[in-house]
Structures are given as structure tokens and as C-alpha cells.
């Protein structure tokens, strides 16, 4: 047949998503996930409401203030010039991710990722309103009668409320939370607040309510590059195929294959093909197919299988955290492999540098620049004057009173523009001063290096020194 065959059905333009209705399960991993979820939610939703006393700035413990360009984190205030700390934090987070992923696989995906957390909560809502897996699947197939409309509608409504509060909470990190709350519901908040909340409400609703595992499979780049970090010794959620399949494959429980002894003598594996591990999977995969991209490593299939094994009185761990090497040879993986140590050192180093960076944030920034238009001016008495622009940024929570002196210039007279005697910098503010330095003309010298010295009268800040030059001609 060489001609094009057009008789077959026209291909569809898209692949419809089959909704996944995982069965709820109890167990070690489920408990761990619930604890992480409760902790993460408590921090995320409550943090913007925590108050914190400050001399200058908002009384909110954590606030990312864009208009004043300051990040408030309890007693730490990050100014724009300390923004490299954010880069340091991101590098640390990346290395920590590599470190953990190299050791225990996609732990971030399974337990900490916000997509996983919010999907988990949305699924719980579904469970409360529509019932467990079987009921939900039945409802899915049902025609749109009042019961289905009510249950589905109620679910989406609750989802929307959670999504809205998520969006609002996020917005509250960027503004004073109680005031934003009042302004938001009286219609007087900034349009950016409505926009941010609106966009996040919609994206949360879509991502956690409808797209779910599709986010992990199609959208998320982490899923792809984390898989690259696996090696043969990485602990992964795996199905022990050697034990589960035996020599004659998995078989359901049936007469003559009820006990382990019977099954082993018949060559049948320990897997009774109950498919509970598939039913509980939030991404709808079969872990028995081996390592796959869609596995977010949440461990719920371990809980499911362990439950069955316990019920049968058989040893647990048919599905467990095991490395590829362990499954092949039975050898336990060693955590002290080159990669783990390398990532570990990098993580420790990044943490140390970040802590060092935070501890050594300068209490004030200052710059002194010679004004070059003109470089020097002859004054009426024949002396020479140079002007300087002094910028001081006080990053402390208390005012600074600084005395300015010049060293390295004989007969120098220093004057601060506006006839001030000291430089007073209010807490967390920047001030510019025009400095006039005058000195008698010295023959033979055209330019000389001079040192400006700032001495804090309150004794809070050590003496600060800056160099510049003085031009005689």
C-alpha cells in the first residue's frame, strides 16, 4: 500500500485529561506529608499577621516593601545594596536541592512543593464533599443532575475560597497585612494588590484544582532536571520487582496461592496485584512500571503496599525507598558517595557564606566623590577649594551623628554645605551633603591624596575612612 490511507478516524487536536481520583490512605508517609503540610500552611498563612516592633519601618515581622525598596525579615532589614544576599540564598537553595535529590530523589516534589501541598488540600476538599475514590469516580460518570451540580459546585466554591485566601496572603507579604485587609474589602487597595490576588487565585485554582499532575508532567522544569541528578545509589520510591514478580510474575490471591510458602513454591511473586498502589497515586501512575518522570516520590504507594503486606502478615517493603543498585544486588547504598559529599560541602559552604554575609552587613554605606566640574576653584584669598559629594546611607535603626575631618592636607578647612557642623543621619535614611575643602595653595604640587574620616559621636559605628584626591591646579 503506497497511497495515503485516509479512511481512519481523523486525529483529535488535543489529548483530554483523565481526572485522577486517588484513594486516601493512612501510613508513615501520609502522616509525614500531613505534618509538613500543616507546618507549611501555618507559616505561610500566619506569618504576614505577626507584628514586630521597629523604630523605623512597618511593624510587620516579614514584609517585602517594594516602594521603599526594603525587605523586612524580623530584625534583619535587607537594603537594595545587600541584594546579593538574595542571590546567595537562591544558590544555597539550589545546592540544597541538589544535595537532597542526589541522596533521596525528588523529596522536594513529594513533600514540600507548593503544587503538591495545594493539590493535597484540594483533594482533601474533594474527599470531604464528594467522598472517596469510588464515589468520586461514580460522580464523574454520572449525568449532570442536581446532586452532581451541587457537589461539584460546592467543591469548586471551597477551592476558590482557599485559592483566594492563598492569593491574598501572598499579597499581604508585600504590604501591611491588616491595613491591606481593610483596604482590600473596602475597594480602596492599590490595583496591584487586586491584580496579584486575582492572578494567584486563578492560577492556584487551575493548578491545584484542575491541572494538578499535569503541572508536574508538562510544566515543571524541576521534574526534568532533578531526574538528571539520580545515580544508581539514589534512594527512590521503588517496587522490588525481584520479590514482587518472582519467576512466574505477579498473581492475585487465589486458591493455592494464599500464603507466601505456596506462592514461592509456585514461583509466583509477593505482589498480589491488588492495584492499591495505583489507586492511591496522585499522578495516576503504576510504580511497578519502574522509575518514571511522573513519579513525584510522595511515598503514598509505600503506605498502600505496607498496609496490604501487614494485613497478610507478610514482610513490609515490597514498595520502599531503595536505590537501583540495592534492587539489583541487595547492597545497601552508602550515603558517603562522592556526589553527596560534594553537594554537602557546597551546601555547607553556601550556608556559611550566607550567614557570614548577614552578620557582616555594613551599618552604613557611604561614598565621597570629588566634584569634577570644576576640579578646583581659586578663592578670593588665593586659597584653593575642592568640592565633594558625600552620600551616607544609615542602615541602622538609630540616628547617627557623624563628625567629618580631613587628614593628609596641611591647613585644610572643611565646611559642610548649608553650614552644618555635624552630619546627622536619621535611622534608615540616606542623606547627601556638599562638602567644601579649602587649603592654601602649595607650590609644586598639583594633586594630593586625602583621607576623610567619619567619627560617630554615639560610638555605635567604628570610625569610617574614605579616600579621595585634592587638586591644587
Amino acid at each position, binding site marked *: 500500500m503506497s497511497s495515503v490511507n485516509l479512511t481512519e478516524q481523523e*486525529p483529535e487536536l488535543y489529548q483530554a485529561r483523565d481526572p485522577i481520583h486517588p484513594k486516601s490512605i493512612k501510613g508513615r508517609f501520609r502522616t509525614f506529608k500531613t505534618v509538613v503540610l500543616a507546618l507549611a500552611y501555618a507559616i505561610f498563612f500566619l506569618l504576614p499577621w505577626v507584628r514586630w516592633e521597629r523604630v523605623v519601618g512597618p511593624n510587620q515581622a516579614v514584609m517585602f516593601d517594594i516602594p521603599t525598596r526594603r525587605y523586612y525579615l524580623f530584625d534583619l532589614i535587607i537594603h537594595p545594596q545587600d541584594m546579593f544576599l538574595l542571590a546567595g540564598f537562591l544558590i544555597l537553595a539550589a545546592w540544597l536541592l541538589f544535595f537532597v535529590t542526589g541522596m533521596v530523589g525528588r523529596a522536594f516534589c513529594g513533600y514540600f512543593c507548593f503544587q503538591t501541598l495545594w493539590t493535597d488540600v484540594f483533594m482533601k476538599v474533594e474527599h470531604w464533599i464528594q467522598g472517596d475514590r469510588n464515589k468520586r469516580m461514580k460522580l464523574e460518570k454520572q449525568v449532570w443532575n442536581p446532586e452532581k451540580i451541587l457537589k461539584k459546585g460546592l467543591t469548586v466554591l471551597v477551592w476558590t475560597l482557599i485559592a483566594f485566601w492563598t492569593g491574598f496572603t501572598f499579597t499581604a507579604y508585600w504590604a501591611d497585612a491588616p491595613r491591606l485587609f481593610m483596604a482590600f474589602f473596602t475597594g480602596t487597595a492599590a490595583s496591584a494588590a487586586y491584580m496579584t490576588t486575582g492572578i494567584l487565585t486563578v492560577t492556584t485554582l487551575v493548578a491545584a484544582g484542575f491541572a494538578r499532575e499535569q503541572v508536574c508532567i*508538562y510544566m515543571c522544569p524541576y521534574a526534568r532536571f532533578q531526574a538528571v541528578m539520580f545515580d544508581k545509589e539514589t534512594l527512590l520510591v521503588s517496587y522490588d520487582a525481584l520479590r514482587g514478580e518472582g519467576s512466574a510474575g505477579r498473581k492475585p490471591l487465589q486458591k493455592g496461592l494464599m500464603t507466601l510458602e505456596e506462592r514461592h513454591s509456585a514461583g509466583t511473586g509477593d505482589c498480589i496485584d491488588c492495584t492499591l498502589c495505583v489507586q492511591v497515586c496522585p499522578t495516576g501512575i503504576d510504580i511497578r512500571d519502574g522509575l518514571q518522570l511522573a513519579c513525584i516520590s510522595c511515598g503514598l504507594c509505600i503506605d498502600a503496599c505496607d498496609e496490604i503486606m501487614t494485613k497478610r502478615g507478610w514482610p513490609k517493603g515490597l514498595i520502599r525507598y531503595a536505590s537501583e543498585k540495592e534492587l539489583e544486588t541487595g547492597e545497601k547504598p552508602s550515603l558517603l558517595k562522592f556526589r553527596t559529599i560534594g553537594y554537602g560541602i557546597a551546601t555547607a559552604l553556601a550556608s556559611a557564606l550566607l550567614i557570614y554575609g548577614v552578620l557582616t552587613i555594613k551599618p552604613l554605606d557611604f561614598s565621597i566623590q570629588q566634584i569634577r566640574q*570644576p576640579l578646583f576653584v581659586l*578663592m578670593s584669598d588665593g586659597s584653593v577649594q575642592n*568640592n565633594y559629594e558625600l552620600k551616607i546611607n544609615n542602615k541602622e535603626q538609630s540616628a547617627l551623628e557623624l563628625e567629618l575631618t580631613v587628614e593628609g592636607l596641611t591647613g585644610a578647612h572643611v565646611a559642610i554645605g548649608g*553650614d552644618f557642623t555635624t552630619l546627622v543621619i536619621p535611622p534608615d535614611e540616606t542623606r547627601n551633603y556638599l562638602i*567644601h575643602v579649602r587649603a592654601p595653595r602649595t607650590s609644586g604640587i598639583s594633586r594630593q591624596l586625602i583621607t576623610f574620616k567619619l567619627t560617630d559621636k554615639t560610638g555605635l559605628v567604628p570610625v569610617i575612612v574614605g579616600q579621595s584626591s585634592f587638586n591644587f591646579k
Partner: protein
Amino acid sequence: MSQSPENKKGQVETTGHVWDGDLREYNNPLPRWWLWGFYGTIIFAVVYWILYPAWPYADTYTKGVSTVSFQSPVLDKAGKPVKGPDGNVEMETKTEHWNSRALFYQEMQSSPSALAQKEWLAKVKGMSFEQIAANPDTLNFANSAGHALFGDHCAACHGTGGQGVLAMNAEASYPNLTDNAWIHGGDYAKIVQDMTNGIQGNMPAFGALFQGEKLTDLAQYVLSLSHQPGVNDEAANRGKASFATCAGCHGANGTGNQMIGAPNLTDKIWDFVDVSGAPNIDAKLKLVEGVIDHGLQHKMPKFSDRLTPEQIRLLAVYVRQLGGT
């Protein structure tokens, strides 16, 4: 993956096209959300076309229904701004189709920084010059605003930093504002007055009165006032008598008169001829003789029609600080 056709039917769906008997084309369809996203971008584009300028046609383009409003001065028939009874330019609200120039006007009038500037302007309006200069914050504001205004209106002659120009030709020189001498007076009120009304500086030419030796003697005397090295005391003494003609403006001691803008000749500052930079006494003499011979005409335009009184006040504070005291 549960969504891939591999798991569903055990084989990948094909498009149904077969070449050479066995060559088939796999069909891996896009997920539905992706397709919706694609349709979404199309809807977005259509909404954009309706709201904003988009399609060119003939020699113009579709304007869109979105608008921008801003305040614009009311113009009379000659195109000049109309002033209201209170002396301020009358403003009206203008609405245009969405365009970035209108957005710029709007931003210059109602952005947070524009509002902050208005707030500061209102704050310094009621303050005296001394009060503005005594507060670091208001001084900072006056200096920043003054610096910007200076760049726009003053720097063309006085230089970006106010350093002035010392030209070969004395009449192409502009005074240095960064030293501590003020030809026309350095108190705030006088600076404001000079900027508002302009300055007319006029030294007559004395070439007819002083010539040859007499001219040189007078120049020697003028240079002796500021103790220039190399001055011939004898010649200077001879020139002292001629200085009586100059004393009418420059004062008997040569200390100048700020009221009529006659510079102080006893200090080391030379604003129109580069005496300080001249290599020897002969060159200095030549410069001073030139001024006596030809006189000196100077004009600074008035700025009352270009700057508001408030802007002139801020400029005065800025200029006053340039050289210190």
C-alpha cells in the same frame, strides 16, 4: 504517564497516513490545556486590538478605545498659555487615545514621585531661604531640584558645575559661580532678583582716555591691588592717579561695588580675563590693558518668563551653596 497513549491503548496512535506500505506518522496530541492557552492568546490579541493602537491603515492606524487623561495648559489662539486671575497658567483635562506620550504627561503629573515633588514644593514654599538651608532634607531637595534646573537653564553659559567660562575674549567669558566672590551680590534676595530680572553689566571703554604708558601704569596699579608677583611698584604708583577714574565704580580701594556689579579688584579672583593663569607679568598686563581699552559688556537674560518664582527660589539656594562662604 497515565496521559500518554502508550498506556491507554498499548500503542501510539498514528495519524492514519501510510507511505511506502509501512511508514506511519505518530500522533502525539497536545494536552487540552495547551490548546486552550493557545486560544487564550488569540482572544488576548483581539482584546488588545480593540483597546490599544494596533493596525496600520492608509497613512494612520487604528486608535483603540482605551484612553489616557492628563492636565494640559489652556492655550490661546497664538498658542501661548493662558494665565488665570491668580497668575498661574490655567489647566484643563485632556483625554487622548492610549499613547506613551500622554502616559508620560500623566506620569509627570500624578506618579508617586511627581506627587512627592509637589509635597516638597509645598513644604519649602512657606520657608525662608535660611530655613531651607538649615534643614538637611529641604536643602537636599533644593539642591537636587536646583541642579536639574541649573542644567536646563544656566549650564549653557555657566557650565554644568557652575564653573563658568574664561575665554580669550573677555566678553565671551561667564562668571564662575563656585568661588566665594559675588560680582552682583551673594545674598539670596539679590540672587533671586538678578535671576528674575536679568543682569546688564557695562564697563565703558577707556581706550580714548588712557593710552600707551599711561594705560600700562594703570594696569600695573590694578594688578598691584591683588598683590600679583612681578608688579613694578614705581609704575603702579604712577598709575594710582589714573585710578581715580575707575574709583567711581570699583571704589577708591578697588574693592568693587556689588550694587552696580563692579568686581572687587583686590581679591585673587578674575572672572573675565585669566590673570591667575597668565604665565608672566607681561601677559597679565596685556589682559588688564585689554579690558581698560575696550571696556566690558555683559548681559544675562531675565528668567522670569521661563521659570516660576518657586523654581527661581530653589535655584538661588542651589547656586548659593556651590562655592560655600
